[in-house]
């Protein structure tokens, strides 16, 4: 478990670092881009505002110049206090409107008395010298002083006629020296502000859009990283698993080979030596009896013990690897297993198998033998079966081994875990899969069926090889060992 965790941690750490990197990059990009935008926009807004206001001022100057020009002939030709001329001039000015309702001219004398105001006629005839705007500035006084100074601009809040709301207004005023009149006009800046805020809104929109794009990019990057990480991880895990299984099978194979080797050494080496010693002892005995001497008891003891030793080693050898597999093949070995089983448990076993011998290579033989062995152990321990059937058969492409019993079944997992004297069904399944075969265990309360299928392609080459080998060695013998 610990090992697996360690293997898993590294990629996840890397993923984590990558994700943080992406998040940081996204954040920094966002901040930088937004700041840049804001700065740019505030600059351009300032520039734009300045430009618009300047434009308005120029307009005001022009309008005022036009207005003064329009009344100039009356003003110039009139005498100082010609009320008729003044009346005519105010009439003309009252009618001179621009920008719809909002552009108009107003006239005050140098004392602050309103002489003409087309939009607020209530002011006419009254003195507004002390009139203050919202900021406490005396508007009329400033406008008059601006006019006297040769014309200038003044910003102040004033009711806009078209919507009756207080708006920022630029006023421009000029002075008619002869009549001591201040003629003024003004434009409202709410349009400018609206334009500016529209622009500001658009820029904010743009920033938002950028933010969203960065967010989407970051999220999709993180997603891709995760996907990549998970894929790599899964693939690594799969590869590791495969390697572990393969390694496990190689260990099993090496173990089986080693067992076979040692069993053979014991059986064909040590036991044979012991047998020869036994014959020597017998020869000694016969020598003695020929010389009419009594056989000493220790000699008899030695011989008896030797027989026990031989028997014991034979048992060990058989346990390590049943030599019958190598000598007579799988069918005979299965027969022996089932005969032993029947003798021990008293349960009959039917065996169906091909009537040919030595057809399979050692590794297949051993694997199938272990499957039968393990299955019979399970049946003996758990199944309480009355009938067992083993069938080994060839069809076109598969070699199939089926072991069925009519016992009470067992929990597959518990059997492969608990069974400490057996190899475990799971290991057997891995072995079969190692030979590219299929392994299945179906267990119910009515019995258990274990099926192992091995494709002929897994051992077909073996036929050709052994045949060639045996043909070389023996000429006419096609079935070795």
């Amino acid at each position, binding site marked *: 478990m610990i090992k697996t965790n360690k293997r898993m941690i590294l990629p996840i750490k890397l993923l984590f670092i990558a994700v943080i990197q992406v998040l940081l990059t996204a954040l920094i990009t966002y901040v930088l881009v937004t700041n840049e935008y804001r700065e740019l926009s505030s600059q351009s807004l300032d520039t734009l505002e300045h430009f618009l206001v300047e434009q308005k001022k120029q307009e005001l100057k022009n309008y005022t110049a036009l207005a003064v020009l329009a009344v100039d002939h009356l003003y110039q030709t009139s005498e100082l206090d010609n009320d008729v001329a003044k009346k005519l001039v105010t009439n003309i000015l009252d009618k001179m409107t621009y920008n719809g309702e909002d552009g108009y001219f107003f006239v005050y004398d140098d004392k602050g008395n309103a002489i003409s105001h087309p939009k607020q006629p209530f002011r006419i005839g009254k003195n507004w010298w002390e009139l203050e705007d919202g900021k406490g500035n005396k508007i009329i006084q400033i406008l008059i002083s601006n006019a006297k100074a040769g014309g200038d601009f003044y910003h102040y809040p004033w009711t806009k006629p078209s919507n009756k709301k207080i708006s920022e207004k630029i006023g421009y005023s000029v002075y008619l020296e002869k009549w001591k009149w201040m003629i003024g006009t003004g434009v409202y800046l709410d349009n400018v502000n609206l334009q500016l805020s529209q622009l500001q809104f658009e820029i904010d929109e743009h920033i938002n859009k950028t933010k969203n794009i960065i967010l989407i990019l970051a999220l999709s990057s993180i997603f891709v990283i995760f996907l990549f990480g998970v894929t790599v991880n899964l693939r690594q895990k799969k590869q590791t698993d495969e390697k572990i299984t393969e390694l496990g099978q190689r260990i099993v194979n090496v173990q089986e080979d080693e067992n076979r080797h040692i069993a053979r050494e014991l059986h064909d080496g040590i036991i044979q*030596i012991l*047998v020869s010693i036994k*014959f020597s002892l017998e*020869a000694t005995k016969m020598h003695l009896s020929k010389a009419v001497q009594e056989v000493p008891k220790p000699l008899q003891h030695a011989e008896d013990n030797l027989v026990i030793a031989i028997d014991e080693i034979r048992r060990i050898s058989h346990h390590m690897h049943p030599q*019958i597999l190598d000598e007579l093949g799988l069918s*005979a070995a299965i027969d*022996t297993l089932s005969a032993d089983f029947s003798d021990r448990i008293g349960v009959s076993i039917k065996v169906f198998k091909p*009537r*040919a011998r030595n057809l399979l290579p050692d590794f297949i033989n051993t694997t199938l033998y272990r499957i039968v062995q393990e299955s019979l152990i399970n049946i003996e321990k758990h199944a309480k079966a009355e009938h067992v059937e083993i069938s080994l058969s060839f069809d076109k492409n598969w070699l199939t081994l089926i072991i069925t019993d009519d016992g009470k079944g067992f929990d597959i997992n518990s059997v492969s875990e608990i069974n400490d004297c057996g190899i475990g069904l799971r290991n057997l399944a891995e072995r079969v899969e190692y030979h590219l075969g299929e392994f299945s265990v179906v267990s119910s309360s009515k019995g258990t069926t274990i099926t192992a299928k091995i494709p002929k392609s897994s051992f077909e080459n073996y036929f050709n090889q052994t045949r060639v080998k045996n043909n070389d060695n023996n000429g006419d013998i096609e079935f070795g060992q």
Partner: protein
Amino acid sequence: MSNLKELPVSVQIVDDHPMVQGGLKACLSFYDDIIIVGSTDDGSDALNKAIELKPDVILMDISMPTMNGIDATEIITEQLPETKVLILSMHSNPEFVKSAIQAGAVGYLLKDTTSEEIYYAIKAVANGKTHFSSSIAKLLIDNPVNTNESEKLTTREQVVLSYLAKGKTSKEIAKILNISFRTVEAHRRNMKTKLGIHSLAKLISYAVKHGIIKN
């Protein structure tokens, strides 16, 4: 027959282990009515030696390097029907005993039996009887050897089958294997009985299906 009884029994030993050969020879040399005429250490050499020596009895081990004793027994009894094969093996498994009997052995001894029993067994089989170690005899009673059709093909039969599948006639096979035409015919008959098959074509398709030959 009465004349033969006077002559000592000639015995050939086939065992891959020189020490066992030596021990056996040492023990059997005490009996005057037995002569060890030769020994070989592998099944494949045993036949040539047997053809040369024509022993009365061959003491045959089973586990040997290139050809095991059972396959060797089958070939020897096929070619030298007069020679009796007595198996002397470590294997006490009934399958080995069955296979040996199928191959034509007339006796089966375990190597841990006494040399005295080996002597009696040699004498018995030389006189046309069979002999099995007592433990083996018990095995045979528990697991009777069936000679019916449920038995497996022997190695020799499979060899004959593989030649049949290659299109050889019984005559040709007899020549290749250096056995009589009648023996080959007998193998064919036995195979058909064992497999419950009645035509040559089916026999060959069985061989192909079970990988005895490759199609």
